């Protein structure tokens, strides 16, 4: 999880204070809160009118020069009453937050870090406290200490700490699972040392976020208590009592609702914005969710050099993310029954190329130019509508993480049936086809497996299901994005054999994206080498391996431990390239 640490363009972590101050809303929130504090401290000096001063000749007046927020039912100045109420509210919040912080950090961090029985106890305690009816307990405390806000705020702090400690516990757990913690333990650091050095800095952000949100709640609860006439000895002005007085004048002077509610709302908003702004910066939740922008489809231009018999051709595919070009003019042709391997390292653009044909690029990543010719039909790759229509029935796809490609909430059979139904078959045939598909991908006990959920099957089986699902609509073209990378090598061999046989029996054009040269050698007929989004070389597999043309291909093949003589120092790519081309890359 990215949590607190986000990284600047130079790769350094940007502190949360700096991030906070870079967001205008957070700054406004801080300004408001500071203003409140200043007014509270300086009230006797800054506010000229006495909040308790009644002027029965000037009741229920709207704002004016003399009374900035008007007067209430007894002629008292609303502005000064509001200002004098700040202290009660802010002290209450401070009391609750301090207790909450102390308890939640102590419980949350210790439970998350040490685990075991202590963790279980803390979790039980937290569940219990979260189930307590807050107001009831507070009412009981207040009936005891009617005129005193402190016990109620302490109680609120204790009850609120439960929710906060739950969050801190999960953050601590996540940090504890990180490998660098294990490395630190192995290196001999003590637990205390690790907590101080690694855990506390990571939870600082979530602590501020949670405590800000808790402060927002504390303001509302505190206002509620004084609304009920508890917690403060009358006639001291409080925000809650102002709302109560507004209720009394509701029929003829509703204006009082505005300043009394407004000041509470602004303060709650300020605390909330502080918390949200921080969370925004790390998890992007309140700010723009990633939604794909609709692009205007470009006119398709028919390419002139399509070879006869080609089922799938891509021409000059260029993909960019904002200013950065990720793929520079990739082109290839594929006949039916042929398997093309797209080989490259991470960042070579191989996956993006295959996703562009499906119109499934991530938001922010767009095809700037490119044309596909499928069975004679010319389609511009910006025509996402047309591409969406081709999904399933014409072009199928299988993905790298087989388990993650299945919806965990539905059974295997259900997910297959759903795709089959797109062909408008009668229901009886649908169920039969589900079993038939599972058998075609060589899954034993097809009926049993169809009733299972994804978490109940292995990775290899999940990939077979993925293949079955991709083939359900009988596509002519199959895209396979690193389909065996996440699988054990023995399972990989079987999946590759399966892909090979299905590709041939159904005469599909298969595009296989991979970084593994052994896989290319195993099932591809032709292969294309990509580096930094450019095609370096494209040839039949035999030619590519035995007579590689491009220096980079040659260097990569030579650096492969599977080709090297055991015991030798492996030739590295940089050395190779230096030798071959006479310059360093």
């Amino acid at each position, binding site marked *: 999880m990215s949590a607190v640490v986000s990284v600047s363009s130079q790769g350094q972590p940007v502190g949360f204070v700096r991030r906070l101050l870079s967001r205008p809303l957070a700054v406004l929130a801080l300004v408001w809160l500071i203003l409140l504090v200043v007014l509270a401290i300086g009230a006797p000096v800054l506010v000229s009118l006495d909040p308790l001063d009644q002027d029965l000749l000037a009741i229920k007046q709207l704002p004016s020069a003399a009374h900035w927020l008007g007067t209430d039912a007894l002629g008292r100045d609303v502005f000064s009453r509001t200002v004098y109420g700040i202290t009660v509210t802010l002290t209450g919040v401070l009391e609750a937050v301090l207790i909450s912080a102390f308890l939640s950090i102590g419980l949350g961090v210790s439970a998350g870090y040490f685990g075991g029985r202590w963790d279980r106890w803390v979790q039980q305690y937290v569940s219990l406290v979260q189930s307590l009816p807050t*107001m009831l307990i507070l009412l009981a405390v207040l009936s005891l200490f009617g005129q005193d806000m402190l016990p109620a705020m302490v109680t609120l702090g204790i009850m609120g700490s439960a929710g906060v400690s739950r969050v801190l516990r999960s953050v601590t757990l996540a940090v504890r699972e990180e490998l660098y913690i294990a490395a630190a333990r192995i290196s001999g650091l003590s637990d205390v040392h690790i907590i101080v050095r690694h855990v506390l800095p990571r939870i600082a952000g979530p602590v501020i976020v949670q405590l800000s949100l808790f402060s927002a709640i504390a303001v509302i609860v505190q206002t509620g208590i004084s609304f009920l006439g508890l917690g403060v000895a009358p006639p001291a002005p409080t925000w809650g009592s102002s709302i109560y007085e507004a209720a009394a004048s509701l029929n003829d002077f509703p204006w009082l609702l505005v300043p009394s509610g407004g000041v509470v709302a602004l303060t709650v908003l300020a605390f909330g914005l502080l918390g949200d702004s921080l969370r925004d910066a790390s998890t992007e939740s309140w700010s723009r969710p990633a939604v794909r922008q609709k692009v205007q489809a470009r006119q398709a231009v028919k390419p002139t050099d399509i070879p006869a018999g080609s089922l799938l051709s891509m021409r000059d595919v260029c993909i960019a993310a904002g200013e950065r070009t990720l793929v520079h003019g990739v082109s290839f042709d594929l006949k039916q029954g042929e398997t093309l391997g797209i080989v490259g390292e991470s960042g070579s653009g191989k996956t993006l190329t295959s996703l562009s044909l499906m119109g499934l690029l991530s938001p922010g990543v767009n095809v700037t130019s490119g044309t596909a010719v499928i069975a004679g039909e010319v389609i511009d790759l910006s025509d996402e509508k047309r591409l969406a229509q081709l999904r399933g029935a014409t072009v199928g796809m299988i993905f790298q993480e087989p388990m993650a490609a299945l919806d965990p909430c539905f059974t295997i059979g259900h997910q297959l049936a759903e795709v089959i139904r797109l062909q408008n078959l009668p229901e009886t045939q649908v169920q039969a086809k589900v079993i038939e598909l599972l058998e075609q991908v060589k899954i034993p006990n097809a009926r049993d497996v169809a009733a299972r959920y994804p978490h109940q099957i292995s990775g290899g089986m999940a990939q077979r299901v993925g293949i079955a699902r991709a083939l359900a609509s009988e596509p002519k073209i199959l895209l396979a994005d690193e389909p065996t990378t996440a699988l054990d090598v023995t399972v990989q061999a079987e999946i590759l054999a399966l892909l090979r046989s299905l590709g041939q029996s159904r005469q599909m054009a298969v595009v296989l994206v991979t970084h593994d040269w052994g896989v290319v050698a195993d099932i591809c007929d032709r292969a294309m080498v990509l580096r930094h989004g450019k095609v370096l070389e494209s040839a039949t597999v035999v030619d590519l391996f035995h007579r590689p043309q491009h220096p980079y291909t040659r260097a990569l093949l030579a650096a492969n431990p599977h080709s090297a003589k055991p015991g030798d120092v492996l030739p590295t790519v940089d050395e190779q390239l230096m030798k071959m081309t006479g310059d360093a890359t």
Partner: protein
Amino acid sequence: MLQVILRRLLMSVPLVFVVTFLTFFLNSLAPGDLASTILGADAPREQYLALRAEMGLDRPLVMQYLGWAGHALQGNLGVSYFTQESVLSLVNARLGVSLSIMAGVLVVCLSVGLLLGVASALKGGWVGRAIDAFSLVGLIFPSFWLALVLISVFAVTLRWFPATGYTMFSDSPKDWAMSLVLPIFSVAMYSITSIAKQTRDAMTDVMGRDFIRALRACGLPERSVIWKHALRNAALPVVTVLGLVMIGAISGTVFVERVFVLPGLGSLAVSAALNKDILLLQGVTLYFTLMTVAINLLVDLSYGWLNPKVRVS
């Protein structure tokens, strides 16, 4: 499934005991006790001690509590010292109102909250921001203040709904419903916001997952991807929050019932606290705790049904 129910009931037993003991204990700390309150400050000492013994107030606290608990299990919650009525009958009379409000809040915050959350997650741009801003309203204004605004606008000015008071269902279903609309929305505003926020977060998270892309790659229509697959997966984290939100709504009813003068458990709790009517407060607390247990149980069951890993084990 049965396991889920049993486990939650088992965990709830200590909860009920802890909460009721806590309130009992807190009340016992009050200066003066029931006997002195009844007799008055200047009653003769022997009379005071005799009454204390008669009421069992001289026993150790734990024994007193167990005595109360024993009676409670038999359905006897004691007598309200203020009104001399049976606590059990007082709380029972008020239960219907509170349950109606809670049920209404549940329906409203699920329907409106889910819709807002999904819309907010799917529509970036200004629509999303507008929804966010609207959702903010429930979060930053106290429920009782919102209640007052709603009364001012819809009851006093527009006269669509009654400002205060409650009509029983048996008297007039229409009036019953009308009297509950404003209170339900006052309480629900905060819940709607929490649910909308949680739904938005969950949907955004789910929409970024691999299987969504895989489902689209199969050619499934977008509406199926969102409303069947994404929402179903997003429902899990939302349900876990729903329980907390509803428990929070219980607290909300305390204020709102007072503003709307509704004869529910919340307003009863406030008057019991103000009058230091200990047994009554104890009884109300018990009922609220039982409501909490019921909510937790429903959440557990929903979660168990929604989560395939729990459903098949």
